[in-house]
């Protein structure tokens, strides 16, 4: 069986987890094995129906009051306990903040290696092969894991979510094997950002600004454009972040975030290799820059050579119209 760990935020299964489950299901079908979902928390069995609808044939619900607040130690113990008991051939996590925090601990606890932040999973000679960008996408590495279960985190926004599935299945309730007194760290508070902006790693559309914006004020133009789309986020180049125009959590590039949206719009970004590394796996790239020689135009599918202060407000209006039609 291939199991997908489903992450729950605000009482709902995260979109990236549904993508992970869909990929688990596709590869499981190819290998002729079953698909399971595993969830952990104080009370999670109520989300089983959503997991079945997303393609799980079986749902493992690890419930324990010790899992009410997230703790990497406690969750890793719970997931390792699940792996020891249910013996999945593979266990997939989303490469989210939580997935990247807990999956390595699960791996270390089980004594197995982990393929991190994968963008492709294939079956080769009856075994899973994991493909992942390294050097922020300047090179593409493929690996096979020699250890079992096969552990991987899958990059959000890369794997298609599945079609809804009718019917249900078996819910297996499990207790967490969290040793008393062994948990020495936990989340005590979650502070939300005041804006409702999505993170650049989760958005379908990323609109990024660079040095050409000349200051923090012009990011308002990009936010206006982002507001036109249902799932858009504002990104930035390293120089814009280092100039203090926008927070580092927006930075796209080798020392920022690697993104793979449907549409990446680079505004006033010249296209330094550091930046290109973080965004070149976007499905479609568009750029607005006044310099026709800017390297960004060598990778962009579409470009406008012009003054961004004139072009961007007009483009926002045109996009609004195009989306309405």
């Amino acid at each position, binding site marked *: 069986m291939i199991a997908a760990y489903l992450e729950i935020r605000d009482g709902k299964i995260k979109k990236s987890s549904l993508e992970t489950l869909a990929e688990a299901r596709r590869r499981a079908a190819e290998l002729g094995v079953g698909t399971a979902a595993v969830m952990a928390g104080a009370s999670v069995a109520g989300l089983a129906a959503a997991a079945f609808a997303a393609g799980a044939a079986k749902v493992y619900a690890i419930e324990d009051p010790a899992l009410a607040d997230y*703790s*990497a130690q406690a969750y*890793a113990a719970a997931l390792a306990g699940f792996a020891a008991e249910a013996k999945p051939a593979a266990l997939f996590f989303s490469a989210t*903040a*939580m997935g*990247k925090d*807990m*999956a*390595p*601990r699960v*791996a*270390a606890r089980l004594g*197995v*290696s*982990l393929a*991190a932040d994968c963008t492709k999973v294939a079956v*080769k000679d009856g075994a899973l092969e994991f493909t992942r*960008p390294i*050097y*922020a996408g*300047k*090179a*593409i*590495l*493929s*690996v*096979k*894991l020699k*250890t079992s279960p096969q552990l991987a985190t899958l990059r959000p926004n890369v794997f298609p979510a599945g079609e809804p599935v009718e019917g249900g299945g078996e819910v297996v309730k499990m207790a967490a094997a969290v040793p008393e007194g062994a948990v*020495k*760290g936990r*989340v*005590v*508070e*979650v502070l939300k950002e005041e804006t409702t902006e*999505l*993170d650049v*790693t*989760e958005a379908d*559309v990323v609109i990024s600004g660079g040095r050409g914006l000349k200051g923090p004020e012009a990011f308002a133009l990009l936010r206006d454009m982002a507001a036109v789309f249902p799932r858009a986020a504002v990104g930035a180049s390293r120089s814009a*972040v280092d100039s203090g125009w926008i927070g*580092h*959590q927006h930075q796209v*590039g*080798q020392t920022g975030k*690697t993104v793979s949206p*449907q*549409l990446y719009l680079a505004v006033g970004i010249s296209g330094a290799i550091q930046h290109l590394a973080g965004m070149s796996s976007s499905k*479609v790239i*568009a750029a607005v820059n006044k310099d*026709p020689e800017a390297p960004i135009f*060598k990778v*962009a599918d*579409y470009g*406008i*050579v012009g003054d961004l202060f004139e*072009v961007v407000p007009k483009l926002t209006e*045109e*996009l609004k119209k*195009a989306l309405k039609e």
Partner: protein
Amino acid sequence: MNILVFVKRVPDTESRIRIQREARGIVEEGLNFVISPYDEYAVEEALRLKEAQGGAVRVVSVGRDEAAAVLRKTLAMGADEAFLVKDDAPEAYDGLRTARIIARAVERKFAGADLLLFGKQSVGADNSQVPAMAAELLGLPQATVVTKLTVEGGAATALREIEGGTEKVSLSLPAVVSAQKGLNEPRYETLRGIMAAKKKPVPVITLEELGFGPGEPSPGLEVTGLDAPAARQAGKVLQGDPAETARELARLLRDEAKVI
């Protein structure tokens, strides 16, 4: 405060990476190597904690002899001691192998540390897994991708980045913390620091000293391919009136690219 910081030598982020497909490795010749950028935040945080609370900062790198250069940089920044755990094995892209070496080194050579600091990931293997794996192997709590750290008495509070927000993590020491951009602004080395760092020894610890046999620890994964990413082609470039080019781009994104 007895602080350990783990650093890695990586290609400069402005480098072009060339690939040797048959050897399944990258061409190192002509590459400029630096300390992994996130590790610099870890070193800086350790130095600030020491300056505020006293104690010692020791820096460790697992790698080949060449890694001594990044260790010297940390000495020049102000670290008290630096150690090279000599590992001649080629890059295996296996975080567990590195975490096993680090955990063993901590147990056998650096017992009694209050805080283990790492960068959130090396810019290269991009695994983001060694800090959490080392924490698990050592039975320590963790806070990864940290943008603010407060240490008081035997406990620490860390803010860590999550999608659309921040988590506040409470830890009892000893603990593992991995640094994210925003944690601090790393200092530059001073000329005096650089001169002093040249004179300091960088002791070498062998894998045998850590109790590993020949070929141990072996990687848990097999590299089956290493390729350059698919090259992107330059596309349509529109020039002229801002209103017209904006209208045309919106049309192309909707009708041709079908992304909106």
